[in-house]
């Protein structure tokens, strides 16, 4: 490293400071040693390091904050109950700015600088797709929590897995029967003009046709849009149901303007909670959504017959029965998605234990151990409910919920069992080489 100082004043400076920082890090690690002393095997007591690719800044920051809190809570719990293979779990967080370019750089930093054991935690699809090729080349297991269909569609690689959250295709398939039976046959879809929105459009149109329904209008909203009223006249008059799934900071505006547009006479409305994730449902302007329906991955508000698992999970993160922070009831969580972080970390733990994971040389064994997983019963590790993992497509399946917004809270009106969310495999990753 010292050789790099020859390049002149400023450019070499970062490298040197970097070296100093590494030293400082080593010092800090040494100081922390007594903490690890309680873990048994002296030679292998170094922590298991999980690189958490976090959307701390950029468009995904609202989700990223909650993904972080869930991750820290799960790691705390895992450490309190003995760690992984007797070793403590350490979360190494790097911000990717919700940007695919930085995402790929962060994956490299995880593999080559931080020397983590696995990378984990990415939500936004374009960051996943930008980062996955590098993870594959670096042979770094990459556990994403994205709900995108990219993993199961076969466009990624053997090193990329999604074992903790269901994908958009299975979610949409699960919702179509409810929409067709309960709300109406003629649907207008409003979605962002993103690949994520197109997945909703394509899968739902197909699923609706199978239910004897029809999508009569598809309104793709440009991603940079901040006002929406001008698009609502495109909604055909005969629409029975509006299906909306929006993301980003403008979603509240979207919902509010939709309310102002329809006034007292509106069709039935079904939305993905993505539109209002991490948003207080009692915010001004949302009164209009009273009586509409939402998809939820995990119910934000405590339901009758709450499981012990859900209770413990909320307590571990510090959430009240409305899915908001105990410290500030207006600080609402991304409850429908963030369980994916919790469950994924536990899958990593289970996979490492099954593979007898000792270090980076066992990364391939870890992927193989996860690939042979199938049944994941409802438990403290899987508070959202029972899961079934498909090792060939690297994708997990689970139950889905439809909730109705009443009196400012969401209550589950239908739970779709995981068996009704399957679709034929589109890829067999296990046939691909490592």
């Amino acid at each position, binding site marked *: 490293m010292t050789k790099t100082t020859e390049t002149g004043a*400023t450019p070499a400076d*970062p490298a040197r400071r970097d070296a100093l920082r590494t030293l400082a890090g080593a010092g800090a690690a040494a100081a922390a040693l007594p903490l690890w002393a309680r873990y048994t095997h002296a030679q292998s007591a170094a922590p298991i390091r999980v690189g958490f690719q976090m959307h701390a800044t950029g468009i995904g920051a609202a989700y990223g904050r909650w993904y972080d809190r869930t991750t820290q809570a799960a790691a705390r719990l895992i450490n309190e109950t003995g760690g992984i293979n007797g070793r403590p779990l350490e979360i190494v967080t790097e911000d990717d700015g919700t940007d*695919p*370019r930085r995402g790929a750089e962060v994956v490299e930093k995880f593999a080559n600088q931080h020397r983590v054991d696995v990378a984990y935690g990415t939500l936004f699809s374009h960051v996943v797709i930008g980062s996955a090729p590098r993870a594959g080349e670096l042979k770094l297991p990459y556990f994403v929590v994205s709900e*995108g269909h990219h993993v199961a569609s076969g466009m990624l690689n053997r090193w990329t897995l999604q074992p903790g959250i269901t994908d958009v295709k299975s979610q949409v398939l699960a919702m179509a029967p409810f929409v067709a039976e309960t709300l109406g046959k003629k649907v207008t879809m409003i979605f962002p003009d993103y*690949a994520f929105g197109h997945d909703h459009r394509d899968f739902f149109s197909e699923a609706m046709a199978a239910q004897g329904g029809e999508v009569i209008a598809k309104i793709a909203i440009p991603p940079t849009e901040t006002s929406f009223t001008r698009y609502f006249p495109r909604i055909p008059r005969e629409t029975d149901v509006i299906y909306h799934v929006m993301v980003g900071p403008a979603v509240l505006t979207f919902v509010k303007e939709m309310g102002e547009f329809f006034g007292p006479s509106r069709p039935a409305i079904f939305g993905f909670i993505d539109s209002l994730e991490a948003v207080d449902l009692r915010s001004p302007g949302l009164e209009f959504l009273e009586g509409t329906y939402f998809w939820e991955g995990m119910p934000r508000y405590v339901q009758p017959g709450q499981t012990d698992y859900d209770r413990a999970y909320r307590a571990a993160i510090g959430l009240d029965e409305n899915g908001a922070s105990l410290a500030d009831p207006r600080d609402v969580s991304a409850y429908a998605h963030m369980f994916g972080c919790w469950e994924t970390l536990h899958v990593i733990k289970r996979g490492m234990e099954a593979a007898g994971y000792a270090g980076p040389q066992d990364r391939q064994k870890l992927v193989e151990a996860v690939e042979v997983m199938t049944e994941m019963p409802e438990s403290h590790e899987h508070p959202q409910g029972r899961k079934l993992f498909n090792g060939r497509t690297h994708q997990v399946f689970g139950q889905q919920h439809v909730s109705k917004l009443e009196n400012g809270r969401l209550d589950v009106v239908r739970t779709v069992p995981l068996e009704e969310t399957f679709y034929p495999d589109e890829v067999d990753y296990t046939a691909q080489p490592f």
Partner: protein
Amino acid sequence: MNARILALHGGLLALLLVLHFVLPVYHHGNLARIMVLACYAIGYNLLFGYTGLLSLGHAMFFAAGMYGMGMPFHHLGLGAELAFLAGIGTAGALALVVGLLALRTLGVAFMIVTLMFSQAFYLMILLAARWTRGDEGLVLAGADRVLFGLDLTDPDIRYLLALGLFALCLSAALWLVRRPFGRVLVAIRENPERAELLGYDIFRHKLAAVVVSGMFSGAAGAAYGLMFGYVGASFAEVHFSIFPLLWVLLGGAGTVIGPFFGVLFMFYLIDISSGLTPAYMLIAGVALVLLTLFAPQGLAGEVRRRWLRWLP
């Protein structure tokens, strides 16, 4: 040709070659990225630093190179060599069209026109989502990323190819700016009326500068996509047009070597400060303000002003 100029630029390339053997793996990978992005910055600097035209839309040329390479590569199975050339060609053609229109304007209007064209280009990528997969982008299969038999997924090959591209761009830029063509560009920047009176066709020179600059950017975009296996719309967004401006201003506008140091500085500024604190943008912001206060000509520009008056 001046010996010290050769020594300086050749020395940088030689140093980068030496670094290939000594750098730790993480910084080795970073430097490969930095060299490719430096090609983008060099291209931008030809237009901004030498010709005096401030474009806010260069991301479209970078993205045109990337998609011009990636689309036939992904959909038609075109080989990496031809796809790379297709990327440069696409960027050059786009630059020609944009240049013909945008060069009717000057100054701030030129900034806005290039910005608008670039924004339209970005939206077109989203509109053609059936083929481009919109914002998500495309993954280029690793097995096909082979250039003249060299496996682009191999970090050593990637570094050396990035170095080769960078060397090519650096020497091409050096050659260009020291030729009469480059002198005319500087003359246009300094005093367009006088350059016109001297009988130079200003429009054609500017157009040539736009096209060359666009092709450099396109080459960088195509190389970036091939090397790192991902083609995405975020490379066409506004902030990716502002980056080269920032890099060039930081490194030293109107110097051949400056853009490289601008990219290097900015990359490690973000990388290191993000390791120190989650509020790394604060550090980056303060650093930018301080730099403009105390090194107004950029890094290489400041070196030229103080010590090396001959720096091209």
